């Protein structure tokens, strides 16, 4: 092979790489290059230093290498090269210089470590994170909120995440807010940051970053940064029991004991489905042609705040396709009242809790009290809409590999056990599922 061509090839290769690098400098929607909190900025400061140093070292070393192999390639008639065995001064130079460069990285590194790992100040918003295979449980102990797979954060206020796992190791990461922290069994880890005040009302992705089994890839969560006042509305509403109840009481009934901590505001009076005081429910009831609304028995019910769905950016919207072979009968409409009755008698209540429904107090699966206020289901995997919710209940294990939630659709094959689901073991027809979904969609 002629030598100049080889040298030219290497230069071409280097140019190609440079072009790729420059082209890749466009940031993706989950990029870590645009920090949105002081934590993210502290990291970014270090990262920029590392990137600059790395680029300089890269250019220097690779240029030196390419120059060397071009300049000193063998030529015809060239005498044997002089045998040089070393040069002490050079050795010292290229030992000391990198050491100094590294020291310049080490000092800000150690400073940043101590700054970002100091205890969060007591005024922080506390969020308890419990990792499960393969979903996220979030609690706000200061508000009495128990929810799953969605985090609302007020902008400009420090939030302190207490990270615990209920099973295997997981890792909590919101790439655009800062670094990640693992969830280790028998440990509590902490991660805190302050979403910038300048942030608008925006949505963010969160992922699990520690391999945790079959559906590790499907363990996502969503983060919404909202205005402080909206956050308060959201939190207060999320803490309430649902008013979509089974028993029409003559006197206000206390909220049943569920897995929520103390400090939750008193549940409002529960009434039948068709005459619930919740304005949202009233709207549904009116649409379905139900009886006119009854005035609330006691406290004024907050309508709650939900991040507007139309503001969700494309990278936060779930696009996971439905698995092949999973279908639902078209043209089935669900009846919410019937759905609630079915729900209260089916396997669902063994794992899920709905505050305000005394039948449903399970703690294995996500809390469903305000399921309809969430934008995704199955830990950020699918959009929260009628079709997906129906299919999820029908065959959750086909929708998300390995989940503990059993397959409930009659005649569906369970991918884990390969058994066919029958009505005898508690399988549900499409109509029953549609009814349940109609009920769940009232749980705003």
């Amino acid at each position, binding site marked *: 092979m002629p030598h100049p061509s080889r040298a030219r090839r290497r230069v071409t290769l280097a140019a190609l790489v440079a072009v790729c690098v420059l082209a890749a400098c466009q940031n993706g929607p989950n990029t870590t290059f645009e920090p949105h909190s002081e934590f993210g900025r502290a990291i970014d400061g270090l990262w920029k230093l590392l990137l600059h140093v790395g680029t300089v070292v890269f250019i220097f070393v690779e240029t030196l290498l390419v120059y060397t192999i071009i300049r000193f390639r063998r030529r015809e008639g060239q005498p044997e090269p002089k045998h040089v*065995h070393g040069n002490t001064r050079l050795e010292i130079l290229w030992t000391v210089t990198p050491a100094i460069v590294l020291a310049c990285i080490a000092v800000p590194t150690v400073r940043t470590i101590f700054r970002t790992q100091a205890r969060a100040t007591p005024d922080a918003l506390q969020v308890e994170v419990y990792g499960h295979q393969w979903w996220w449980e979030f609690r706000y102990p200061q508000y009495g909120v128990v929810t799953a797979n969605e985090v609302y954060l007020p902008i400009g206020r420090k939030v302190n995440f207490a990270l615990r796992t209920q099973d295997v190791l997981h890792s909590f990461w919101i*790439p655009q807010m800062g670094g990640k922290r693992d969830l280790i069994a028998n440990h509590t880890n902490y991660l805190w940051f302050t979403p910038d005040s300048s942030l608008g009302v925006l949505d963010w992705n969160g992922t699990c970053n520690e391999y945790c089994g079959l559906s590790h890839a499907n363990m996502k969560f969503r983060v919404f940064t909202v205005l402080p006042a909206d956050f308060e509305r959201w939190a207060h509403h999320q803490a309430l029991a649902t008013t979509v109840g089974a028993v029409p009481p003559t006197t206000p009934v206390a909220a049943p004991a569920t897995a929520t901590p103390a400090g939750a505001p008193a549940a409002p009076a529960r009434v039948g489905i068709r005459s619930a005081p919740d304005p949202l429910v009233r709207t549904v009831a009116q649409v379905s042609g139900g009886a006119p609304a009854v005035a609330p028995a006691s406290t004024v019910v907050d309508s709650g705040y939900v991040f507007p769905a139309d503001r969700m950016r494309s990278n936060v919207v779930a696009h996971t396709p439905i698995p092949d072979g999973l279908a639902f009968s078209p043209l089935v409409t669900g009846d919410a009242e019937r759905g609630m009755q079915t729900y209260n008698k089916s396997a669902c209540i063994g794992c899920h809790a709905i505050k305000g429904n005394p039948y449903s107090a399970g703690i294995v699966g996500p809390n469903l009290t305000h399921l309809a206020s969430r934008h995704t289901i199955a830990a950020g995997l699918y959009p929260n809409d009628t079709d997906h919710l129906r299919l999820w209940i029908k065959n959750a294990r086909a929708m998300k590999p390995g989940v503990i939630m059993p397959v409930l659709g009659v005649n569906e094959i369970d991918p884990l056990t390969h058994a066919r689901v029958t009505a005898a073991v508690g399988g549900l027809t499409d109509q029953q599922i549609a009814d349940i979904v109609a009920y769940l969609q009232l749980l705003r």
Partner: protein
Amino acid sequence: MATLAAPAIAAATTPTEYSGVWGWITTTDHKRIGRLYLFTALFFMLWGGAEAEIIRTQLRAPNMHFVSAATYNEIFTMHGTTMIFLAVMPLSAAFFNLLIPLQIGARDVAFPRLNAFSYWVYVLGGIVISLPIFFHAAPNGGWFGYTPLTTNAYSPGINIDVWVIGLQILGISSLAAGFNFITTIINMRAPGMNLMRMPMFTWMSFVVQFLIILAFPVITVALIFLVFDRFFGTNFYTTAAGADPLLWQHLFWIFGHPEVYILVLPAFGLVSEVLPTFARKPLFGYPVMVYSGILIGVLGFGVWAHHMFAVGMGPIADSFFSLTTMLIAVPTGVKIFNWIFTLWGGAIRFTVANCFAIGLLAMFTIGGISGVMHSSPPADLQQTDTYFVVAHFHYVLFGGSLMGLFAGIYYYFPKFTGRLLDERLGYWHFWLNLLGSNLTFFPMHFSGLNGMPRRIYTYDADQGWDTYNLLSTIGAYLVGVATLIFIYNILRSARHGQRAGNDPWGAPSLEWSIASPPPIYNFERIPTVTSRYPLWDVKDPQLTADVPHTEQGDFRLRVVVGGEHEGTVQFHPEPDVDPRHGAPLASERGTATAAELGIPIPYSTAKPFFAALGLVIMLCSLLTSHLDTHVPMYGLLFGGAAVLVASLYAWFTSPLEPEVAHA
């Protein structure tokens, strides 16, 4: 006078070399064992490469269903396990076997039968851990097996059982080899070969053996704990009993970090052999290269928790390991500069071997830079467990270890087969490999920093990762093509390659002074070494005048080559030979046999093979514990033990080689 009176050797009661398959099973010759390692390791490299192609096909685009989640998790686990334990480490072991005795002027390793034992344990262990993938029972907890995911509570199936047993088996192979090579290098060097005259490959391998014998016991203990938890109900990793998952992580990474230096230092050693030969000048800064290698080995035991920056060890631990990790970058960088300055001022010949060696310099630099980026814990919190770290370690393992090993294969293939690998196919391999691997792994830096987690079997659309993944997949296919060209080159050149003489490259070290392929006894007479570059000394002594020599002056190297028996050197280096036109094969020159020279050769024996078989059967007995009856388990346990004990007894009571009657 060189003609010797051949001493009387007790007539061997069994022939020393068998033919065919039985010949391979009974061999105790380090060169043949090295060949076994080489071809087995290349097979597993293809196996792990196929697993990689499956991964990349699945990740080509969002939401693909090329493989299921369960299959993907087995594939990525086995890709890591295969490449590390079944491909790269054994490729290094192939070179330990082939080269070390030749480079130090010895006839074999210290314990030839233990050497064979190491190989057979490796092969059997490789089969144990690889076969289950055909039954959907392959390990699926990641190559690093973090608890509590790998405990019975969360992985009740046989998959993780296979993993723990398989790794224990492979660990025994490496440990045995470690004891063997430490003894060989310390105790079997030719006269005059003091430590600072050893070739760099032997030096780096020496450091690696210490890393092996000190690091593998730690993972042995971690695995013992997991085996005991899974099979005997202990609580080392049982969360409910108060166990700490970090115990596994610490034990694993105390092994795991030295392991990555085990993976890369032999490749560094090979580069240090290749570059000087093709630059026509000695390695720049030999003592510094030795000390930096030792320092990397020692410091390698002090950086392990940099794999754990996200687990919440606290600021003091994070800072300590951050500083030690930055510190280890210094000797590593020093090596890069010394290699560049080996080339500086030289007359560089771009043989394929040299291309790969230079390729290692280019790509390992990139991997080293991303490594320094990882060393800062706050920044690492954005990088760890994302594709950024996948990019980092593939640059250092693929662009580093594997490229160095390829350089070694192209360089030493003629020595051990007598034929040269085809250079034209080699260039295709090199360029496709360079282009393909950069195309595969460079975009991963970006997908990682754009939020893509590791170890996910699929990802959603619109996350900004699609293009990077597509590029990586295309690159991976290119690497696959390059690898197939390489394998074709090996298979074809083994039979039809251009013939090579003793020294097609004009190299300085002892192994190039003997025939290609070498006779079974390696050296007709153990040479007396007078400098670091024995063969160059002979050709051009004034050029190596400032290298340490013996006090008695510049003795001519007493090496007998081919059939010539003169006292002074009859050595014909071929520094300017065009590799396409080699010299006739050594056998055609009429090499003397061992018996004629009075050199005892270790007996060929199947005892190491049967000992390995017995041991592996014993360890595999636990894999039957899921069955309803315990009869198979006890059968395998005691059956295996019987085979092992019988083999060991026969081994220890039979002589290694024929007795030599003293004159």
